[in-house]
């Protein structure tokens, strides 16, 4: 079997058969391939990948170009959508756009496809300004994605517009291929004073292996508000490397919630760049793992201008033989005075075989800043457990209730009520209890 890196590099020629190689975007792809070829997959020798190994994934013979499958029936995937409210939907099946399941729009705002944005002249100006402008030019997996960038979600909210409905971005994989590699590439732009809510989900429908290496670029212009929710509850044979890059301008507000309950290996590289003043960047996460699941949250906030804030609050509950990583990097440039940067990572280990590695990484070059970070690793409070039991609540439910309570303040900021209820249910399922009420 060919090494995955070699396979990818040699597939590039075949990839080029189906795209316009004279397009300027293709120069970006070719350059990205060159970088990836030089660097290869990250290994445990890289500090940023010390606790997350891609070795098992590199051994799988992934299909890189899936054959098109028959459309999925809506009823097969219905449960992965929100129902109680109307949403825009951008749906992919094995990496290929499904017009049947999608609901896009060009009415005042653009909620559509990356392939359309990359190919149609009317989007050219936007692509020139934004495409691959905040994504890392060095990181090898981001370059790999850039090299093969072709399809994904494209959302453009013009100045002073509000997306009237949340956008659901769903990536389904059907198991049509024994093992499938997906590389969605998305671009999301909220212009001055625009507002947008996005829910992103990757869902494998069978137990066949899936490896997704996704890159999302988000641009929030002056006063823009972007609320982004990542629901990671995939099957135990699905792995995800999520590379999200966010560029913010003056007084914009971007919040990313990451709910990590599923999957085999999940790596979240969440990067915020503050290119203006009075910016607020918020990251919240709830991670609940069991079995041999692995989740690695790598966050970066780069404070590049004065008077900005960032807030990070990640909660993790680790059971069985699961492993977690939290690495939160905050850079405060010398010019970025009056920065407020908060970071909190709290973890509960419910099994003595579970592990968590947590590390704050602060690089502060300004002298008038407020930065705080804290991490805790603990067990459930025995006194609290006894308190609940003494009220007649059985131990299992009492434990679940305490874990719920532990994760709760992260849910409080979810602004889509149905999503909040769904996350509540996912948490209850994950903890194996029915509490009879939502938090």
């Amino acid at each position, binding site marked *: 079997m060919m090494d995955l890196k070699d396979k990818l590099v040699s597939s590039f020629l075949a990839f080029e058969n189906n795209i316009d190689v004279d397009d300027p975007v293709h120069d970006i792809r070719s350059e990205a391939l060159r970088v990836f070829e030089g660097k290869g997959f990250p290994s445990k020798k890289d500090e940023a990948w010390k606790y997350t190994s891609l070795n098992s994934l590199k051994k799988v013979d992934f299909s890189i170009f899936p054959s098109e499958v028959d459309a999925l029936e809506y009823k097969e995937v219905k449960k992965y959508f929100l129902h109680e409210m109307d949403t825009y939907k951008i749906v992919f099946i094995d990496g290929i756009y499904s017009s049947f399941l999608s609901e896009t729009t060009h009415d005042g705002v653009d909620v559509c496809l990356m392939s359309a944005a990359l190919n149609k002249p009317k989007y050219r100006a936007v692509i020139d300004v934004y495409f691959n402008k905040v994504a890392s030019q060095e990181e090898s997996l981001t370059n790999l994605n850039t090299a093969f960038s072709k399809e994904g979600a494209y959302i453009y909210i013009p100045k002073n517009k509000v997306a009237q409905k949340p956008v659901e971005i769903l990536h389904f994989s059907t198991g049509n291929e024994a093992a499938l590699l997906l590389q969605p590439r998305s671009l999301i732009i909220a212009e001055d004073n625009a507002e947008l809510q996005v829910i992103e989900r990757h869902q494998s429908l069978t137990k066949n292996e899936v490896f997704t290496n996704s890159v999302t670029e988000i641009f929030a212009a002056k006063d823009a508000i972007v609320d982004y929710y990542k629901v990671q509850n995939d099957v135990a044979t699905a792995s995800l490397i999520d590379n999200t890059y966010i560029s913010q301008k003056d007084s914009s507000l971007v919040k990313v919630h990451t709910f990590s309950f599923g999957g085999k290996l999940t790596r979240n590289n969440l990067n915020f760049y503050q290119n203006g003043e009075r910016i607020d960047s918020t990251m919240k996460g709830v991670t609940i793992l069991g079995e041999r699941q692995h989740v690695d949250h790598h966050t970066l906030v780069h404070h590049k201008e004065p008077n900005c804030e960032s807030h990070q609050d990640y909660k993790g509950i680790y059971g069985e033989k699961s492993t977690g990583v939290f690495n939160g990097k905050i850079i405060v440039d010398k010019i970025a005075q009056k920065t407020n940067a908060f970071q909190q990572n709290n973890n509960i280990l419910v099994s003595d075989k579970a592990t968590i590695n947590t590390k704050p990484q602060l690089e502060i070059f300004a002298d008038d800043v407020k930065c705080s970070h804290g991490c805790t690793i603990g067990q459930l*409070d*025995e*006194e*609290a457990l*006894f*308190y*609940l*039991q*003494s*009220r*007649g*609540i*059985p*131990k299992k*439910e*009492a434990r679940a*209730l*305490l874990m*719920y*309570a532990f*994760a*709760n*303040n992260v*849910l*409080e900021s979810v602004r889509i009520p149905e999503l909040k209820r769904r996350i509540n249910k996912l948490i209850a399922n994950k903890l194996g209890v029915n*509490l*009879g*009420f939502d*938090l």
Partner: protein
Amino acid sequence: MLKIKDLHASVEDKEILTGINLEVNAGEVHAIMGPNGSGKSTLAAVIAGKEEFEVTKGQVFLDGEDLEDTAPEERAHKGIFLSFQYPVEIPGVSVTNFMKTAINESRKARGLEDMPANQMLKLIREKSELLDIDRRFLSRSLNEGFSGGEKKRNEIFQLAMLEPKLAILDETDSGLDIDALRIVANGVNKLRSKDNAVIVITHYQRLLEYIVPDFVHVLHNGKIVKSGTKELALELEEKGYDWIKQETVV
């Protein structure tokens, strides 16, 4: 109702209860007094089934049934309630939802269906009025940010909701001002009946002016060293605990 026979209990090999004998009948109020560290709170926790304490000898019976190996929640289902000295804060779970869960778990254990929502609301309304509790308070997270008095009042509200056979009030008076003390005591008194019993654990006689005990026991070094009627509490208030300590030594 409750019968304790030669009860010994330890935590981390340190014996705290060293042979307790006590019998509490339906309709009675017993006060357990004693100096700090005498084992009062341990006794309460052991009756409620706290697993941290190891019962090394003796038994606790409820209605003739030995409670050995009975989990705290099962004891609650059988009608034991412990009002905590330091109630635990549970962020994100409202008082109402907590009570719903507690009541329905108890019903489930008795083979009953969940209590219908309207009945639950009626019960909550009744009991919150009994304890003069602001309705807004019920939607707040359990004990989170509550003042000492609010926590204690909330404990008695839970007591009222769960209607246990045996209520153990562990230092319910500590941290209460006189008005809060009166409200809490009135609440307890209104809940008293010929079918239930109350054990009041307290350091001071003050609470016993409002919840008048039938019997007073003095605990010292993990044993009941003196029992009597409510007059004993007054005597203790007057003479202090040194008197008991000396008498025990003699």
